[in-house]
């Protein structure tokens, strides 16, 4: 009986603390999401890291800690070449996508008056249709018997199909630049839209022509959007699997394809884990260097 009363006192006090502490209430609301995120993100990533220090032994794993997988990942020339190629391809995709998207975003932000909303929907609709099929569409277009070749041949412009269109890094870059376009347009558009129009008028008022005004005001102020877009494209595309597998051929293989092989056909999970960690580290370093350089450049412009 007395225990019950004491318990009641404790729960009442806990209830009082809960009501009085915003932090406690906020954390209570956050906890389901955080539990899922820890269980499905943090724990798996920790295990992945642990796995990368193990060794494959037949169908099992030898759990002695070793750096052998990293020595293999970073030491073998084929893997090193793959890292470089993945980063090169993604860098090219990022550059092309951002360069192509900037004028488009600029047009919607400054050239369109009433129907911005419609333009934004138009620009995002293709992005929401199956990724797989969007990449596959490029295979249809660039293929040996594909749309371009058959089209040019039926027009009589060429007599034999062009073979350099498909199964190479070029095809990967084109397909990715197409697939990731909205990720460039939206952040750049948002940063352009945020620019106070009176700043542009002030620049004109102070004697800048359209070009100087763009270089001295618009571009620097939109750089956060450009940087955001670049990171949002560069990081995931380095790990893209579908595109190289469909249109890359043997010359367009990227790191994700090799990682997938380790988990599928080859069956060397520790090596796959080490390759994954190493590629994330490489991408992370490349991203930090890039954003650092862009910020420094932005400061110089100011």
């Amino acid at each position, binding site marked *: 009986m007395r225990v019950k009363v004491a318990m009641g006192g404790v729960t009442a006090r806990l209830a009082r603390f809960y009501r009085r502490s*915003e*932090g406690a209430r*906020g954390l*209570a*609301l*956050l906890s*389901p*999401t955080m539990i*899922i*995120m820890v269980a*499905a*993100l943090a724990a*798996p990533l920790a*295990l*992945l890291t642990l796995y990368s220090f193990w060794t494959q032994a037949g169908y099992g794993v030898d759990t002695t800690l070793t750096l052998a997988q990293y020595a293999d990942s970073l030491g073998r020339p084929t893997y090193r070449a793959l890292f470089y190629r993945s980063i090169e391809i993604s860098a090219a995709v990022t550059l092309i996508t951002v360069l*192509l998207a900037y004028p*488009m975003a600029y*047009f*919607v932000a400054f050239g369109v008056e009433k129907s911005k*909303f419609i333009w*934004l*929907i138009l620009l*995002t*609709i*293709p992005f*929401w*249709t*199956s*990724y*797989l*099929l*969007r990449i*596959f*569409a490029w295979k*249809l*277009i660039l*293929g040996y*018997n*594909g*749309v371009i*070749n058959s089209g040019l041949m*039926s027009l009589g412009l060429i007599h034999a199909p062009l073979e350099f269109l498909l199964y190479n890094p070029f095809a990967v870059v084109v397909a990715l630049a*197409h697939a990731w376009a909205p990720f460039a347009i939206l952040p750049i558009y948002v940063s352009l839209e945020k620019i106070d129009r009176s700043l542009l008028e002030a620049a004109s008022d102070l004697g800048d022509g*359209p070009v100087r005004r763009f270089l001295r005001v618009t571009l620097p102020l939109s750089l956060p959007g450009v940087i955001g877009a670049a990171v*949002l494209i560069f*990081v*995931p595309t*380095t*790990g*893209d*699997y579908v595109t190289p597998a*469909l249109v890359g051929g043997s010359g367009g293989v990227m790191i*994700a394809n090799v*990682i997938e092989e380790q*988990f599928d056909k080859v069956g060397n999970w520790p090596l*796959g*884990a080490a390759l*994954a960690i190493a*590629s*994330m580290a490489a991408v992370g370093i490349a991203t930090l260097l890039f954003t650092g350089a862009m910020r420094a450049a932005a400061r110089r412009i100011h």
Partner: protein
Amino acid sequence: MRRSRIGLSLYAVAYLAFLYVPVLFLPLFSFNNSVFIAFPLNGFTTQWYGQMLADSAMLHALRNSLEVGAITAAVSTLLGLLAAKALTRYRVPGGGAVLAFTSLPLFIPDIVLGISLLILLNLAGVPLSLVTVIAGHCLICIPFAITVLMSRLDGFDKSLEEASLDLGENGWMTFWRVTFPLALPGIISSLLLTFIVSFDEFLIAYFLAGSEATLPIYIWGQLRFPYKLPAVLALGALILVASAILVVIAEWVRNHGIKDGKRAVVGA
């Protein structure tokens, strides 16, 4: 000034063509009366649609994807709503770090998310199934849900909820009478967006589905067989139309809702 604007407009049209033309080849060749995906076109047919609809494996995969998408959308939107409410309404210690952590999946390649979940499930002895696919999809959908719902909750005055408490309602009734109706446009658009993301996701499902197949896994399997391509194109065309409709609805609801909220805030 005038000339540059015309130049920009032309560029915008060309850019739209670049975005749309490759995608529009899917419906175009889905009506072409030939197994070969090549010009010249060979006449109109709807046989590929008939072939596709007769494919029981496809229908099974479609049902799997609809299930996975619906459950993922419901779970990630619910979790996103709780998190968004906590992050916009309470002074939570470390809230910024929490937000950064929940958006991490956007910055990690899907392949890494897929294999690390595979390792965890393997070690824990959990058999692969559609349930594990749903778990993986929730992971990538929660950041979308939180972003959409946070912007919606930020869009209306916090004192509306306080007013409800002040007028005598408790937290739960305040949620149903004030927060929920005002957040509804955001909730609908979060449901639609997370559904589409899950419905379209291939790589994580590929690692986690075990012997089951979602629609993208099924399509991936078909891409190897040239004679099955036209039916896949027919399927792709239908998906294109369906997702376009969903996206337009989602965007319309969100935009309409935001305007509503803004008006309320500006007016107040």
